[in-house]
């Protein structure tokens, strides 16, 4: 556990040092989405029996926590591997790569949770305080862990900075827009709905909007996210052991 503490302490120092740039950076994108889709495009619209702003805020939280967790985790590991070579310090240290993976995934997830808190603060200024239930918090946390583990794996797999764009272009960006973040997935063609239903961000978006949903559906969202996390985390830890 000493190694895990060391990793997290290091991440804390780096977070403290980059506090303002991290904080402001995490607020830019959701602010723009809130202005464009919330107040601009969706002003006066009703979706699924609620105002568009109420609908879109959980979607923006799901999307932004995904983006922040994924990018922090993937950038952290691929920069450490390819550019600054700080990854080598851990490769030669007597540290279990499972612990290393856990530490890095936790750090990436933390940034995601931090961005969710910022969005909630931001939206509360304009639309009143959002109701954060324990279920809402669990879904947010799971979403952050899923995409932090995914980002970590992506950061290990890529051979150059350019490769990271492939993950963004073919996985992250399509999910950002298709997984019920800005509009209901029921508007999508049936064939596409089947595909969208198996994606983790869909379950994060639906989970964050699940007030009043049946218990089975709520459990399903948690189950899908836990499943994705377990698979991605094991893959990342296994690959980390063989990374050179």
């Amino acid at each position, binding site marked *: 556990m*000493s*190694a895990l*503490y*060391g*990793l997290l*302490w*290091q991440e804390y*120092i*780096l977070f403290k*040092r*980059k506090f303002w740039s991290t904080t402001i950076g995490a607020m830019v994108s959701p602010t723009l989405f809130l202005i464009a889709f919330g107040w601009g495009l969706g002003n006066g619209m009703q979706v699924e029996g609620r105002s568009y702003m109420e609908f879109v805020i959980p979607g923006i939280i799901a999307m932004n926590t995904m983006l922040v967790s994924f990018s922090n985790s993937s950038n952290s590991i691929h920069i450490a591997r390819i550019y*600054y*070579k*700080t*990854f*080598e*310090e*851990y*490769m*030669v*240290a*007597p*540290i279990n790569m499972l612990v290393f993976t856990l530490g890095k995934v936790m750090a990436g997830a933390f940034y995601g949770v931090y961005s969710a808190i910022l969005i909630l603060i931001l939206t509360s200024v304009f639309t009143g305080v959002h109701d954060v239930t324990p279920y809402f918090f669990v879904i947010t946390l799971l979403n952050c862990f899923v995409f932090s583990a995914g980002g970590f794996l992506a950061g290990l797999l890529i051979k150059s900075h350019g490769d990271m764009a492939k993950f963004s272009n073919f996985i992250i960006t399509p999910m950002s827009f298709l997984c019920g973040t800005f509009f209901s997935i029921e508007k999508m063609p049936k064939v596409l709905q089947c595909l969208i239903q198996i994606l983790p961000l869909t379950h994060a978006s639906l989970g964050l909007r699940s007030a009043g949903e049946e218990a089975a559906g709520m459990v399903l969202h948690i189950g899908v996210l836990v499943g994705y996390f377990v698979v991605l985390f094991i893959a990342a830890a296994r690959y980390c052991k*063989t990374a*050179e």
Partner: protein
Amino acid sequence: MLSLINLTKKYDSLTAVNGINLDIEDGEFFGLLGPNGAGKTTTVRMISTMTPITSGDIIINHESMDRNRAAVKNKIGVVPQHNNLENEMTAWENLEVHGIIYNMPKALRRKRIDEMLDFTELTGRKNDLVGKYSGGMKRKLMIARALLHEPEILLLDEPTVGLDASARRKMWDLLKNLKNDGLTVLLTTHYIEEAEVLCDRVGLINGGTLAELDSPQNLIKKVGKFTVENFTNGETKEEFFETRGEAVAYAAKLEGSINIRSSNLEDVFLKLTNRRVES
């Protein structure tokens, strides 16, 4: 003692290290000397567990890397060729993280950090971000970090590459202190003078194999203590002689530009492999 047993590394069809056998005694300062691409860094990366071994084994003080990787990792300190410090953290913070990861008790960790900062003369700059350090200071801090957990063997991969002449001399002084303290050190370098000044024994590595292995003095004796360089017809030819008299007598018969000098490890390498080290 560090033993390399038939150590081999292959990348597809390329054999980077080809069956190296080597014993480095406790307290020995050993140098692997060779040109870029000879297999020095790959050898160090295998010893430091960063690169998987294709075949063979590494034994450090009776612990086989093949059987007990974690134990081997605790016994070595590694200073890689490039800076791999966290630039957004201070020197003290870099050392603190290293100490925590190596599971050092807090009191011992703090004591060793102070000692290592003192040893590398970085105490006055310990709270500065590493990103603001000069190349020489970063290299010193990497040595401090590698020594923090009191390893039995220190691996130094080209520790002075990229440093100016003054910083290189200072680094040599630091490394001489390690030698005087009796630490076992494996150094890779392509600087002839560095190997001659620091190393008890030198292994000349070329094309992934050890071409020769002995003390710098004995290696030079093997080719001849004096070298006659003769620049004629657009190329330099070297001949080696046991005594200055023989060298002078030979030089008297030559045409073109002539230089008689003491032989060095570059000459040994050239004679054995027809390649230059510092090419």
